[in-house]
């Protein structure tokens, strides 16, 4: 596919699939018709040139395919008439199908794919397949399962949507506040989980695209904007996170010149519009402190520590507690960090975790006890969960054992 066709497809496909699902209720039919329309475009456009409204062209072809298929299956007239009225997709804004139809079909599709009655993995896979149009084979690779297994998982999820009566609708009122965090959690999982063979997050770009779309469709939701800001700020560091050999480079060793300035400024701009901080807002503010600092020592650690305090109050997890201890160690001295770390390890969830040991080692090194720090880094390396993580921890152990002057 050429680059321009790919861009058109990325925008048009979810619209087409979403609209066809709304009218026909048939997920497979919707996906097949969108794929057939794309295939026709691949054959025709290079010779005939791209039509003036490529998205509309694709919608028309897909819609006609759906009408043909359903007519052969002798589906009731009403559905066919409704299909025939489907407007070709314009470029932005909701598609008005009848005057009262203002909710974007894609938003409905997102909420349906992320319905909590579906298993979490199926929500992630279905979102990737249906809204991002990622091939099942690629989703399977990222989730370390075979393609037939992934296809079965997707089919089962679509069957449940039909059989259980999961509605194709964006919830309203209090139900929206209850359901939106679940949708954002799926996007967050997309952003963080599943890595390609080269260690790149496989679906980070898709997660960013979805967050942008969601923000356009739900402009009043501060956590949606906050999530997009968080993604953009985190993603700005993607090139600096690994060295040439594939080793993980910790934040304090990253070449800040390699951080993506455009991504940072867009993230900060989006964050500036966030008025109320929820969990994603706080995480975005923490990320903003990091990416705007000239160095580790020049980082606004007191603000980061405050954000972690708020985050721990709102939604305490072992990882939040760990990062909170580290932040306090930088903001208020290693003893403050070690005290917090000891407190959060006492409940068991973090005890013996490589990240917790590494954090203790780092705080200990900065407190001046390099021998103990080296021993702790080796202890953390022994329980590391990946080879790059293990190598990075052993490097830190060696540095402390050699008593190199710290940078």
């Amino acid at each position, binding site marked *: 596919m050429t680059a321009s066709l790919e861009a058109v497809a990325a925008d048009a496909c979810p619209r087409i699939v979403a609209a066809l699902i709304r009218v026909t209720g048939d997920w497979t039919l919707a996906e097949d018709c969108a794929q057939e329309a794309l295939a026709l475009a691949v054959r025709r456009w290079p010779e005939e040139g791209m039509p003036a409204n490529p998205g509309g062209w694709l919608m028309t072809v897909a819609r006609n395919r759906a009408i043909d298929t359903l007519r052969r299956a002798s589906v009731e007239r009403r559905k066919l008439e409704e299909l025939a009225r489907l407007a070709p997709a314009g470029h932005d804004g909701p598609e008005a199908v009848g005057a009262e139809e203002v909710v974007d079909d894609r938003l409905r599709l997102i909420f349906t794919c992320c*319905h909590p*009655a579906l298993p979490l993995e199926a929500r992630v896979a279905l979102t990737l397949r249906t809204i991002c149009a990622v091939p099942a084979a690629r989703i399977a690779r990222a989730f370390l399962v075979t393609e037939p297994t992934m296809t079965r998982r997707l089919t089962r999820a679509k069957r449940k949507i*039909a*059989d*259980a*009566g*999961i*509605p194709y*609708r964006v*919830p309203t009122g209090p*139900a929206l506040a209850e359901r939106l965090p679940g949708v954002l959690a799926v996007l967050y999982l997309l952003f963080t989980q599943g890595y390609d063979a080269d260690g790149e997050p496989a679906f980070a770009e898709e997660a960013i695209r979805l967050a942008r779309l969601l923000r356009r469709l739900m402009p009043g939701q501060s956590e949606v904007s906050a999530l997009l800001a968080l993604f953009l700020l985190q993603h700005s560091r993607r090139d600096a996170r690994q060295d040439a050999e594939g080793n993980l480079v910790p934040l304090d060793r990253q070449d800040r010149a390699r951080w993506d300035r455009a991504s940072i400024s867009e993230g900060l701009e989006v964050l500036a519009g966030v008025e109320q901080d929820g969990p994603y807002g706080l995480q975005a503010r923490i990320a903003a402190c990091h990416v705007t600092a000239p160095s580790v020592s020049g980082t606004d650690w007191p603000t980061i520590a405050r954000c972690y305090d708020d985050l721990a109050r709102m939604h305490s997890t072992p990882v939040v507690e760990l990062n909170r201890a580290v932040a306090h160690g930088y903001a208020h001295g290693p003893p403050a960090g070690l005290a917090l770390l000891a407190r959060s390890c006492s409940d068991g969830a973090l005890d013996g975790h490589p990240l917790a040991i590494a954090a203790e080692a780092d705080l200990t090194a900065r407190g001046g006890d390099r021998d103990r720090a080296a021993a702790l880094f080796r202890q953390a390396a022994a329980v590391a969960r990946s080879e790059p993580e293990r190598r990075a921890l052993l490097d830190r152990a060696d540095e402390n054992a050699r008593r190199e002057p710290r940078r």
Partner: protein
Amino acid sequence: MKYMMFVCSDTEPDTDKENEPDVEVWVAENDARGRRLRGAVLAPESAATTVRVRQGELILSDGPFAETKEVIVGFDLLECADLDEAIEVARAHPMARAGRLELRPFADFEQ
């Protein structure tokens, strides 16, 4: 859509006893809105009898067919527009806290 709502006991009921809903109020409200078609509380599992026929022979056994700690203690037959409405009905039932509810749609052979 029709949903069978199995009302089950649970080994870990909610510890929060504030504002517990009243089952009579739940029944009256959902009956009035046409969302509950009928329902009943079942006799304890000690009264259950399991029936099988194998090679023409009737086999009876005492008790429920599955040995689990969570047992079905009652049911309600719901008529709801979709799963979200059924979930709204179920969450307001006192046994959503004291036990657990399973929503099972009726199979649709027209699909």
